[in-house]
Every structure is written in C-alpha cells, then in structure tokens.
C-alpha cells in the first residue's frame, strides 16, 4: 500500500508538469460527471416506481453500484490501459520488478481526473442513504459496507479478466465493457426487474446479484434472512477463476520485438 502511495506521488508530480492539460481534463471530467448526475435526477423525477421498487430504493441501489464501480475503476485504472502496456513493452519492465505484478500494473497508470467521478459517486451515495428512509442499525451498515466491498472486488475481477484477455488478443475486447460499464448502468435496478434469465446470468456466470440483489433485499427490509448479508463474501470467490486466468495469461506472455 505504501508503495502504491509512492507511485501516486510520482504520477501526481508528473501530472503537475502539464498544469493546463491537467486542469482542462479535470474540468471536462467534472462536466461529464455533472451531466450524468443531472440525467439521473431527471430520470428518477419521471419514474417513481419500477417493479414495486420505490424511487428511494432504486436510488440507493444505484448509488451503491456506482460507488463500488467508481472505486474499483479508480484503483484498477492500470488494467483499463493494459493493451497499450503490453503493446509498448512496458509490461517487460513490470516483470523485472521484484514486486507483485498486479500491484505494479495497477500503480503504473493512476489517473487523477477520475477523482471527479469518485466525488460524484460519493455525493450520490450520501444522497441515496439520506433519501432511503431506512433505520440504519449495525446490521444494515454492515450490509451496506459488504455490498460495496463485494462490488469493488467483482468489478476489480472483471477489469482483471479484461487485462488477461489482452495477453491473447493484444487488444482489449469491447464486449467486456458490457460486463463493466453495462453492469454499472443496468445495476441501478435490482437485477430481478430484468427477469429470470438475466438473474441466472448475473448469479452463476458473473456474480453481480451476490453483492447487489440478495443483500439489497435484506437492506431494504424485504426479507429477514440475515445470512443474505454474507452473500457478497461468497461473490468474492469469483476472484479465484479470475486470478487463475491472469496467471495463465502471464505465463503465455510473448513480449514484443525490440
């Protein structure tokens, strides 16, 4: 972790070398984020209820998914640009460092303009919690924290899968974005509103429902099943196949000519 902070320092120093570019990007990101934020507000202004979920419930659900996504995205940024990391031979250098490869990839690209999005996610989360009309006891708070943690892990795993695929195709695959950005967009509603087929896909293939739908039912008081709050931890098992795929990719790394 301390090494990650050191890397952050060097990226920050680098970013400060191009002050104007940095400020403009930050401004752009902020405007885009603000735009999205307004869009969400207008949308919720029109539709008050979807499949028996109330406005406040959907808002809470969305804010949790958005927050975990933004958090994962901010730290896993290095995987997003992994195709170019492999393409320009930077990955060779990473393999020459005596540290964990995943940590080094993640710290190789840190994009501070993403802070804008993170701030937006925090605002919506606070707004969602205040609007939720729920009594926040310890069990609820724990559920919320586990949902966020589970979401971060699962989105993080998807970024890792995305990067692992780059070892074989040398290009990122756009379809992976359906699983990441798509899940962020569709995840604003608890997944049962999309019907059984989607529920199955989102449980057994990519375990979104384990950090979203199931614990959320407990969170908003639709069920008394306390054990639902542990489902995000089961979702974390998704890490195992992802890490196996990653290791397989590293072993098959071909490097680039020089």
């Amino acid at each position, binding site marked *: 972790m301390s090494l990650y902070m050191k890397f952050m320092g060097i990226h920050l120093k*680098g970013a400060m070398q191009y002050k104007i570019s940095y400020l403009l990007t930050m401004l752009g990101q902020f405007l885009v984020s603000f735009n999205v934020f307004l869009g969400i507000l207008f949308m919720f202004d029109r539709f008050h209820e979807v499949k028996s979920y109330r406005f406040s419930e959907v808002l809470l659900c969305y804010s949790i998914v958005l927050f975990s996504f933004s958090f994962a995205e901010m730290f896993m940024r290095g995987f997003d640009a992994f195709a170019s990391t492999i393409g320009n031979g930077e990955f060779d250098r990473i393999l*020459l460092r*005596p*540290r964990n490869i995943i940590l080094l990839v993640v710290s190789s690209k840190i994009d501070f303009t993403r802070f804008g999005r993170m701030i937006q996610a925090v605002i919506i989360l606070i707004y969602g919690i205040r609007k939720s009309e729920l009594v926040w006891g310890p069990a609820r708070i724990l559920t919320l924290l586990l949902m966020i943690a589970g979401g971060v892990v699962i989105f993080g795993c998807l970024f890792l899968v995305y990067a692992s695929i780059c070892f074989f195709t040398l290009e990122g695959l756009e379809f992976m974005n359906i699983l990441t950005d798509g899940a962020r967009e569709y995840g604003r509603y608890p997944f049962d509103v999309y019907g059984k087929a989607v529920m199955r896909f989102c449980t057994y293939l990519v375990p979104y429902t384990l950090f979203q739908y199931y614990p959320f039912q407990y969170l908003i008081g639709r069920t008394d099943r306390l054990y639902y709050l542990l489902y995000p931890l089961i979702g974390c098992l998704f890490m195992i196949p992802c890490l196996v795929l990653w290791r397989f990719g590293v072993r098959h790394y071909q*490097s680039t*000519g020089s």
Partner: protein
Amino acid sequence: MIEVKHISKTFRVSRRSAGFSEAFKALFHRQYECIKALDDISFTIEDGEMVGYIGPNGAGKSSTIKVLSGILTPDQGQCNIDGRVPWKNRIEHVRDIGVVFGQRSQLWWDVPVIDSFELLRDIYRIAARTYKDNLEELVTLLNLEDIIRTPARQLSLGQRMRCEIAASLLHSPKILFLDEPTIGLDAVSKLAVREFILQRNKTHKTTVILTTHDMQDIESLTKRIILIGKGKILMDGSLEEIRKQVETSGQNADELSIDEIVASLYHKYQIS
C-alpha cells in the same frame, strides 16, 4: 553462475499478404507461422564473466535476455541462475539482476531522474544506507550531478543512457544484462559507457551479458563471444578464435576490421 540447457521458444506469428481483400480473408481464416526464436540454446556463464552476445537482427538475442531475466517462459529446457529458475522464482530472481534495454526507458518520463531513483529504492526495498552509498558512487562515476534533477524527457540520449545504467545498478545486482546499451550514442558517450561497464565488472565482479551490433563494444569489453543466428548458437569462443575461423575460410583476418570479420561470419553461417 548462469546455466542454460536446451532452451527453446516458439512464437506464433500471423501472416497475410498485402491488400484489403487479404486483410478481409484474414478476419475469418488466419494463417499462422511458427517461428523458432530460440532453438535448443545451451551455454554456461561463470560469475564475474563479461560475455558479448551477437547476431543479426531477429536472431534471438533479445529473446534470450528475456528468458534469462524471467520475462518469457520458454517452451522447453532448463535454466538455472544462482540456484533460481528465472520464470518460476521471478521475484527472488529479479532482485539480483539489472537490465538495461537500450531502446526503452525505465525512467518515469515526466519527473526528475532523482525521483525515479527514489521510487526504485522503494520498489527494491533498498536500505537507506546502501542506497545513499550506491547513488553517490554511480553519480560520481557516471557524472550525473548536473542532470539528475532534470525530467527524463528533457535529457539527451547519452545523458539518459547514463541514467538508465545507474537506475539498473541501484540495487547492486550481481548480474547485469545490457541490450544494445550504446545504440544511437555519440563517440564520447559510447566511450564513457564502455569505460564504466569495464570498471563495474572489475570493482564489483558484476557478471555482464551484453548484446550489441557495435563491434567496438565487443572488442573493448568482452573476451568471450557467443554468436547466435536463427535461434541457434553457432559459436562460443574468444575473439581470437573467431579470427581463426575466418582465416580457415580463406581470408586474412589481420587485414579485416572487426565489422568485416563478423559480417563474413554471418555470411559463412548463412544467417544474414
């Protein structure tokens, strides 16, 4: 000690002819060709040795360096470096080696070189005392005082190369891999780099493995030369032995420059 036994590595390269229709066909049916980058490579290098590794472009020099430094996993064969297998014990292994790629920078582009050095200190967990001593020594020998506070992107190639070499020696590695360290340098910088490498080998007993196309590098630095072509090791011997080889093929080696000797070697083995 570096022991390499029967290492092979094959790459799959996709091939197609030029033209749009060919590109379209390749979308559905791609033809692959297997290229043997390394074909049954074996050699042994003792501690403190300096070895020149030569061969034409695409012969497998960089691939060998990448296998030895743990970047690539070979298809077959064994490699043992001071008791470690590079691609299996990656972390322990890379702590003990330094690698300079002449064509690629390891410095962080936008920050002063000293910041890169400090980050490397943290990555390698170099003790404060050792770091200070090593930095002092490297700065003096490579004459870095004036450039260490400049961002890497504003350095000239020669200045940058000196910083690259310093960066790969901060953690006092036992083995140093240099992949074309003098490429594109002017005469003064080349001489400075060569002089430094010689010194380093003498004072620290660092094993140096050097790939280059510059035969003056080889002449002034190494006693032993390994010649590789099309993935195979063709020769392993001293410069003198190479001269003799050329003489047996009917040319008078004394009259030839080292570049001509190597060219005739490439010609002899039909690898150019």
